């Protein structure tokens, strides 16, 4: 069982607390001139995404969580599981709905994604920050109404729905920021 002491906990250090994996965001050392030294950690629960604060006595140790980030290729979805491949070892792993969360709606196949593994099981799958996808369904735009900045919903080839400017038409490719779910621009042909 590997452990780390408070002075080794840096941003990105993975900790196992109450059975859950956490990632350290920030570690603030405080020491009154004449008092007990403490380290206040800001940590993110990698299963729930919740951020919390926890203060430890300086010098305390915590077990390290066996968490790693890996770039993997998305292969296919069988309706229940999404299958990814390690491009170096060709090893395949499957991620369930919880790990996919919002990422599933942006993937169509073959793109490289970052997968956070905990004890070699996928914990979080991150879609690429931006994706280029074709519009499969949207209402015809209203001519001449490009200046007002109005938007309309559009369905993309992966099934995701995004708000797009009125001038976008079916069959066009657009670029979307997956972190915000917002339309960025028309994608190059």
């Amino acid at each position, binding site marked *: 069982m590997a452990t780390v002491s408070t002075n080794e906990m840096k941003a990105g250090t993975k900790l196992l607390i109450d059975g859950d994996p956490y990632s350290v965001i920030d570690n603030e*050392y405080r020491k009154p001139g004449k008092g007990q030294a*403490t380290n206040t950690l800001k940590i993110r629960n990698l299963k729930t995404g919740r951020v919390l*604060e*926890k*203060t430890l006595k*300086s010098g305390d140790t915590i077990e390290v969580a066996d968490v790693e980030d890996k770039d993997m290729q998305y292969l296919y979805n069988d309706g229940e599981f999404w299958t990814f491949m390690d491009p170096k070892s060709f090893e395949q792993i499957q991620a369930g709905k919880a790990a996919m969360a919002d990422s599933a709606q942006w993937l169509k196949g073959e793109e490289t994604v970052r997968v956070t593994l905990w004890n070699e099981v996928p914990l979080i799958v991150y879609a690429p920050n931006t994706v280029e996808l074709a519009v499969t369904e949207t209402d015809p735009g209203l001519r001449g109404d490009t200046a007002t900045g109005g938007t309309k919903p559009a369905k993309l080839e992966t099934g995701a729905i995004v708000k797009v400017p009125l001038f976008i038409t079916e069959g066009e490719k657009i670029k979307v920021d997956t972190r915000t779910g917002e339309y960025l621009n028309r994608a190059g042909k």
Partner: protein
Amino acid sequence: MKPPSGGFMLSDAMTDWTPSADLPTLRARAALLAALRGFFAARGVLEVETPLLSSHATVDRHIDSFRTADGRWLQTSPEFAMKRLLCAGSGPIWQVCRVFRREESGRHHNPEFTMLEWYRPGFDHQALMGEVAELVVALAAALGRPLGDGMERLSYREAFRRHLGLDPFSAGIPQIRAALAATGHDAGDLGGDDRDIWLDVAMSLAVGPRLGLEAPCFLYDFPASQAALARIRRDDPPVAERFELFWRGTELANGFHELGDAAEQRRRFEAEQAWRREQGREVPPYDRNLVAALAAGLPDCAGVALGLDRLLMLLLGKDSLAEVLAFDSGRA
């Protein structure tokens, strides 16, 4: 690959040799030191130098010293040597020096830092707070960052009442823990059954960060259990005649109406040693020279230690100690 002349290796080139502070900051530091000397010279306070290496060390349970290969100790404060000078009849004295503490580096912590320390015979802690305020105002003016001289004085008790809604002299551990939880702080079982540790944690997390947000603020009259080297006044409950200075939530100075009772001093040293022994911590020898000097007689006085790097950092509006040190511990 053949190394360039002078034995300069690629791995040498990859190290970051540059200072952590910029040049204007180093100039401000020099101006601060010059202003300091002017301030004390004008008041007839004598500048002294005392040894950095000593055959004794602090036994304070929360301060760990560096030990040298020959079995001596680097000072964590010049306090003991300066009190011996006072006992020898020096009159008012001050010193600026490096002190060393075995602790983590952090935004506001560096294992060696610059301490300003001075002693005033005939002053109590309230009188010395007045002079600390005058010094901070003078130094701010010297750096072209004038401060008003209205500095709040808040008792330790009042600060806890105001910011945590409890009385630090009577609250039990469950009450302190509940108040911390109510202000959004999770400290687990950090303090165990040690009430003073819970008070420290509450100070670090919930009270201290709210002190001196506008102008610097003094905190005074601490619980007797946190007296360190301060006199205890027999109020009900008894209080330690100790003060701290906070500015923008950062602790800047710690002062005492100094304990002069040799027997009481020895008792406190021995209690700290006993605690260290019990916890399996290093137990340095306490300073017998200090106890002997106190037995010969310490003039009634107050003394204070001020972290000069932190003061410079706050005066210049910087966020970290590294920005005001020529080389922080990562580059030392």
